């Protein structure tokens, strides 16, 4: 809550904050700074105390070289100027945890001063969009880097531990900690906000751990921070007043303390109160600072040079005259230092630039997983595997261990080698991508990081199932248990497979690979359930992906022409075929005649604009339709008791019709709507070959009662007919059945039956699409003659062909019954 308020104060532009830190870092040495007892924490009470630590008379300090080297590493890492001669001092005050009555420090003559530290600004990802002020990445491969000047670094030692017992009014003292080496880092007030403060401290922590200056336990134990916060009105100079906040224990505390102080001081300034110089302490529970001591009550420390310690001399390679043996050479230490975290990150960006961006690094930094990341990268050779590892770290590992402590535990439990192993296994498909998360959780729970991966896999049986037979068995079992999905498959195959997929995963704990599951189910369905159409749907899910809802269908159909039935016409039957020359027109004409013989009112429309055959078949060549009814509809020509219409009756000459699509569409519309068809029971439409404009417009303009497919038994014809059938299915026109033409030939001389165009073509087609063969018509020479001459076959009542057509007509009537109001 204070965070938002403080940010508001700063971004209002009326105030600016100056924040400086005094950071005490516990050095990671074995023994103490001035005495050889152990510096290790958590030892039995008062068991690591030497005479010097107790300030017994006669004891003298003996300076630990390791502490000096650690201090120099810090100074180099913070880019400080190293003072070759520095002095130890006594800082006098009385307190039980300091038996000598003074602390040895370097207040006025530190060994390092005037440094500069660069640190990246860390922002939470969700805040990037909202706070434009704190944009964290300038370009994909950089961070926003801020800097903070270091005033000085001084060597000093720690005091004992005091425990206050209020009930007994006493203080208990443990001197184990007395004398452990510390460095105090004092910064200039260059920090401008709590975010900068936290980023600075985190980066500093990283540096200290990397350079082996302090132990890796975070801000809580190895590092203590005091913050000096002052808020000023913009355009006023800082007046030197500042508030010191002590007792800050963690990174979160830092932010809260600074934010609270900024808010508090803003309140004072706004109400024109001066800001007192004081010392406050931070209350972790209440997230606020509390007054401790006024500045005027400051203690006079009476600094004095420590007489028991001569001046500290440091050397580098430039020094010719060295008076000390076993001296400390700054340049030697510089050589042994690893690269700074800043440089290391830059190196990573360069080395792994194929897949690593500054954003990734930023996340890794935020999660405190940089070291883990580095170790894992070293374990893997292939950049591809590394990329996978990075993704896994930023997703799966992040959700398992989402705070600093948990990450450390994870890094311990799942060693980089184990992690790399897991990645390799996933890559080789020994383990599936699903089980990766479970596997990581298991390994994390188990504390023994030396256990090989194999033992985990064996124990929990996490190997991927790859045996094909077993997979089939599993799939069959699941299908048995979930019969509903099979039904679902018919309407929405994609969804059905997804459902089966999730059921399988749950049941078998993700031991089957994603794609294998899908493939197995697909194959099963194809084998057992397929219509060609569903196969088509599987392979090209795009075209038949999901069924649109009725609303969607309505919306989609808005631009399309509405299907309106022709007035007075009860049924419209289209006779089509994918292929040309199979006998559509002959079949349609004779069917129409057969129907009319059954006392129905029949009309025939020749929809083949480019090749009208009806005039020839019905002996209407060179006739034109010229008469109009009272309602301005064209009267169709009538022959053989059929109402006929063709484009040939409307165009002037007998020549070719060279029209583009649009004109063709308009012609069809005219033929449908502007002809006086009514009253009719059946209108038979003779379609042209193919699946083009005309078929489509017909299907869209009027509701087709049925489609009759004509084919010859040969494969060549079947191929095209299949396309036509699917097209009609697509436009939702019901297909009545198949008429197989040229099915057989009876020799005139000997009567031998010869199936010239192949056998069972129509049957196989019918089986494929679940369609019925309505009739099989043989090649008949008389039929052909009659067609050419325009004498419909049904004139001769006793031919086989005539009875076949009669049967066909009866079938049609059965399929499409009419309600007859008049009987001729």
């Amino acid at each position: 809550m204070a965070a938002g308020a403080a940010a508001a104060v700063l971004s209002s532009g009326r105030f600016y904050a100056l924040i400086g830190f005094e950071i005490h870092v516990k050095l990671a040495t074995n023994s103490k700074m001035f005495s050889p007892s152990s510096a290790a924490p958590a030892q039995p009470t008062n068991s690591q105390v030497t005479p010097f630590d107790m300030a017994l008379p006669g004891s003298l300090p003996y300076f630990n070289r390791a502490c000096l080297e650690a201090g120099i590493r810090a100074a180099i890492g913070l880019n400080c100027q190293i003072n070759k001669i520095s002095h130890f001092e006594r800082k006098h005050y009385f307190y039980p945890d300091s038996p000598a009555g003074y602390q040895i420090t370097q207040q006025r003559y530190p060994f390092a001063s005037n440094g500069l530290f660069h640190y990246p600004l860390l922002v939470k990802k969700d805040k990037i969009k909202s706070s434009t002020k704190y944009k964290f990445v300038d370009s994909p491969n950089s961070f926003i880097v801020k800097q903070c000047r270091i005033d000085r670094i001084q060597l000093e030692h720690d005091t004992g531990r005091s425990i206050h017992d209020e009930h007994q009014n006493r203080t208990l003292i443990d001197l184990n900690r007395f004398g452990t080496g510390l460095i105090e880092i004092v910064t200039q007030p260059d920090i401008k906000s709590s975010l900068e403060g936290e980023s600075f401290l985190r980066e500093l922590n990283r540096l200290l751990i990397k350079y082996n200056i302090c132990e890796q336990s975070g801000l809580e134990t190895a590092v203590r921070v005091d913050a000096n916060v002052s808020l000023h009105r913009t355009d006023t100079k800082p007046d030197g007043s500042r508030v010191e906040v002590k007792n800050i224990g963690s990174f979160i505390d830092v932010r809260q303390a600074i934010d609270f102080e900024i808010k508090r001081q803003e309140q004072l300034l706004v109400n024109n109160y001066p800001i007192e110089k004081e010392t406050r302490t931070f209350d972790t529970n209440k997230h606020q600072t509390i007054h401790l001591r006024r500045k005027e009550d400051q203690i006079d420390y009476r600094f004095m040079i420590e007489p028991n310690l001569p001046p500290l001399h440091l050397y580098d390679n430039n020094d010719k005259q060295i008076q000390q043996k076993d001296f400390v050479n700054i340049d030697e230490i510089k050589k042994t230092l690893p690269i700074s975290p800043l440089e290391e990150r830059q190196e990573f960006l360069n080395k792994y630039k194929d897949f690593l961006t500054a954003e990734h690094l930023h996340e890794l930094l935020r999660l405190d997983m940089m070291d883990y990341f580095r170790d894992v990268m070293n374990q893997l050779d292939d950049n591809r595997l590394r990329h996978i590892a990075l993704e896994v770290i930023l997703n799966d590992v992040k959700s398992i261990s989402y705070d600093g402590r948990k990450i450390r535990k994870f890094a311990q439990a799942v060693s980089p080698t184990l992690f790399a192993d897991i990645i390799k296994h996933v890559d080789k498909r020994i383990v599936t991508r699903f089980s990766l998360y479970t596997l990581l959780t298991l390994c994390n729970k188990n504390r023994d990081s030396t256990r090989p991966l194999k033992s985990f896999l064996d124990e929990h049986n996490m190997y991927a199932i790859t045996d094909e037979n077993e997979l089939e068995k599993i799939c069959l079992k699941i299908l048995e248990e979930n019969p509903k999905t099979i039904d679902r498959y018919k309407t929405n195959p994609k969804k059905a497979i997804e459902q089966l997929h999730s059921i399988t995963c749950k049941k078998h704990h993700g031991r089957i690979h994603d794609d294998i599951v899908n493939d197995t189910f697909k194959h099963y369905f194809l084998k057992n359930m397929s219509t060609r159409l569903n196969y088509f749907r599987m392979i090209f899910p795009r075209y038949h992906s999901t069924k649109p809802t009725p609303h969607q269908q309505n919306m989609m159909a808005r631009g399309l022409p509405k299907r309106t039935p022709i007035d007075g016409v009860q049924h419209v039957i289209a006779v089509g075929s994918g292929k040309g020359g199979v006998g559509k027109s002959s079949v349609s004409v004779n069917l129409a005649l057969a129907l009319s013989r059954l006392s129905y009112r029949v009309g025939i429309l020749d929809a083949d604009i480019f090749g009208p055959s009806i005039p020839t078949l019905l002996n209407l060549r060179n006739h034109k339709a010229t008469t109009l009814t009272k309602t301005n509809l064209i009267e169709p020509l009538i022959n053989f008791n059929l109402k006929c219409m063709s484009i040939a009756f409307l165009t002037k000459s007998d020549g070719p019709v060279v029209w583009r699509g649009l004109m063709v569409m308009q012609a069809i519309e005219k033929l449908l709507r502007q002809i006086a068809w009514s009253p009719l029971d059946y209108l038979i439409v003779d379609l042209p070959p193919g699946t083009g404009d005309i078929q489509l417009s017909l299907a869209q303009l009027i509701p087709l009662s049925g489609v009759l497919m004509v084919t010859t038994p040969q494969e060549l014809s079947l191929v095209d007919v299949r396309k036509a059938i699917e097209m009609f299915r697509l436009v939702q026109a019901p297909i009545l059945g198949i008429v197989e033409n040229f099915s057989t030939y009876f020799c005139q001389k000997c009567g031998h039956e010869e199936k010239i165009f192949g056998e069972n073509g129509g049957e196989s087609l019918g089986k494929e699409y679940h369609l019925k063969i309505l009739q099989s018509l043989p090649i008949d020479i008389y039929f052909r003659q009659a067609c050419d001459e325009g004498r419909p076959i049904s004139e001769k009542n006793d031919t086989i062909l005539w009875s076949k057509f009669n049967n066909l007509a009866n079938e049609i009537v059965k399929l499409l019954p009419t309600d007859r109001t008049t009987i001729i």
Partner: protein
Amino acid sequence: MSLFLLSRRSFSVLTQIKIDPNMQKKLEHLSLISFQNEQTIKKVEQTIHSSDIIHQANVDHLEPLYTLVQTELCPLRQEDIVSNEKTLQTKQVLKNASTTYEDYLVARMIGKRDSQTVEKVDTTKL
């Protein structure tokens, strides 16, 4: 060479330093010695006066000497190892204390000191 900031008082034999109550409080606090009565204060004032003679010496051109052995450089303990011989045993540490409590040295309760996180005793555990 390091430079000192030495605040100098102007030398005067006749002026006597007077200890006012604020100064008295400060001295008591710094030295942990309490001034019992007027006589003690007077004694202190006299001691200060007589030692003021030190200001007669002109030390402007001299650096203060704070160690007798000027050429010595800070010696370094080369090995960072724990020495158990030099470490006292706990009973030795507690030997001279009048009151101890469970290996802890005991002092009178004073209060919080700066730059130290103070631990409160959890009385439910004791």
